[in-house]
């Protein structure tokens, strides 16, 4: 993930069918997004990459430093991105295609138990 470049393009909801995906996050990211979990409507066939790009467009500079390395489109190495609980590096990375009803989790760094 750390070396993955993300195109900063928006999700276009016109045309193809729309699916619903739940976004879930915690701690600092939750504070930025304003809620722990919420549902978004995205175009069928969208990937993690397109969803992240939409999020950056929506929350802009507030969110970007918490997801990307400075002056870069590279995702911070300690950010965990999961689809239905599985880390996307064990799926298809940021090219993982999202499906209706999927849960997309973004977990900032933390530890200690």
């Amino acid at each position, binding site marked *: 993930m750390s070396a993955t470049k993300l195109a900063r393009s928006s999700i276009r909801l016109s045309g193809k069918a729309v699916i619903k995906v739940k976004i879930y*996050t915690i*701690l600092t990211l939750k504070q930025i997004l304003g809620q722990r979990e919420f549902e978004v409507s995205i175009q069928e066939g969208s990937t993690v990459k397109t969803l992240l790009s939409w999020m950056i467009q929506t929350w802009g500079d507030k969110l970007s430093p918490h997801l990307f390395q400075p002056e870069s489109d590279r995702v911070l190495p300690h950010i965990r991105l999961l689809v239905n*609980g599985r*880390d996307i*590096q064990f799926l298809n990375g940021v090219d993982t295609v999202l499906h209706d009803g999927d849960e997309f*989790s973004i*977990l900032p760094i933390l*530890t*200690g*138990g």
Partner: protein
Amino acid sequence: MYKGGYTGKILRINLTNQTAKKEKLPLNIAKDFIGGAGFGVKYLYDEVKAGTDPLGPENKLFFAPGPFSGTAVPCASRIAVTGKSPLTNAVGMCLSGGFFPAELKLAGYDMLIIEGKAEKPIYIWIKDGEVRFRDAGKLWGTQTSDCQQIIRDDLHDQNVRVACIGPAGERLSKIACIINERRAAGRKGLGAVMGAKNLKAIAVRGSGTLDIASPEKFKSARAAMLKAMKESPVLYPHFSKEGTPSNVDNTCALGIFPAKNWSATGAFTPVDQIGVEALESRRIGKEHCADCPVGCSQLRLAQAGPYAGILTEGPEFETLYSLGGETGVDNMDSIIAADRLCDELGVDTISAGVTVGFAMELFEKGILTTADTGGLELKFGNHQAMISLIRLMAFREGIGDVLADGVKAAAARIGKGSEKYALHVKGLELPGYDVRGAKAHGLSYATSYTGADHNRGYAFQEIFGVPVPYAVDRFAIEGKGKLTVWNQDVRTATCDCPTMCVFLLDMAMAPRATESTAAFMEAVTGLAFTPEEVTRVGERVNNLARAFNLREGFKRADDTLPERLMTEPLQSGASKGQLISRKDLDAMLDEYYTVREWDANTGIPSKKKLKELNLDYVCNEIGAK
């Protein structure tokens, strides 16, 4: 002989005769076992014979700080307490932090061995080279904070450090712990071993200093560690301020925060009620262990209702699980109160909470009724009942007597199919990760030499996504045997033996833990280690502990998980559908045994492996081939 770090002395105390004897620490034992848990396991194997009654005078307790405790190595003031566990009949080993560990080193000892049994309650007073046995008749019955303060007053020295038991240990509750300051050597019932010996407390004051073998190398190793700590994206920015509770938010997100006796994981996720934000408003200060620049331990004050005004150091993540998720309690102030109550009565918060959760499920299923509970409505979420039950358990009153020895013993007494709901491995209650969604962590619960113990082989790769030694899919089965061996051996060698804080490994030192330990060993003690030799110490300790357990009659069949985890898939949350089936567990165990070079059927280490580890002397006792 020793150039630094070690004092070279062991203090052996016989309570029966009230004698104290100083012995030399053999150099080969320091080299082979480093200290802490290594010393504890080595001496336990050598000195506590198979079949020993854990609560009899023949059982022993080994209090061993590490070679860096008492020096300026950061985060090393920890102590391993080892004995045969009355809860599991296996090796009982757990660690505590605070100031007591460094104080024992500065008093001049690498290990304290307690044997025999006092005729009546006493406490031990160690002041450097002097040892006194003092009457504890008036202390018997005191809570742990009162006990410590009374001893300090009695000795006219407010800087005395004390490790003691509370009423639960006095009553031989098998989930009783040992408390020093507000820290706990919490698990496996070692507080009951102290109680059985009529030993209320150990008080220590040390005025010594410890040599450093190579000040230049020490400076370099310390600077490297402090740099890694500073560069950690989590240690100071978050962990120093929040402590462990943010893991409630994390494990809820992963769908592995266990709830309602593991029947509602993923469905009951009280993040808003007991997660890190809820705790923030109750934080009034923080605590450091000796020589720790991080200070993860938070002081929190209950705010409302009958609990207002109660202060605790914590609750840590594990306690938020055991007295929160596990019991279905989402009242934060009651968890603060229950945490403090457990510390004062000297009860392990994890085992206590899991036992309460177990009783609640039995009550909800009608196996226990108000006739059994003395009128307590033991429904999930009933925090008043939880607190009442903890008190009953510590004092062995009413239903509390049935539950005071943990879930395995309680299920045996209650019967009626209750064993199905008793969540333990080898008798030790499950800690706070629903391992159906973290398979290597589950394998470690099954194989740890202490039973279900999150600290013996913590799978931070699965829980936090730390990609060391490599990233893993938390739901995968393949490869988890090999990973678990790495987790257990490296953690043992870099945390449990040198008694370094585990949080450093997790958050700052993971990629270089064995290198750092080797560097400190050479710099502080003058004993040369390669990183591979450090890992080998962990392997040696895990094999010797295994040998102890085999000698006690443990078999492969004991390396298992509760039936619920193998037959009931998670119903909700981000780990929905996951379980560790019998087949999955067997596959992981086969891989684990192969990597360990243990016999696939008997679980006995091979003679070849034992010889490699300088453990030839155990071969015949355990029938190694």
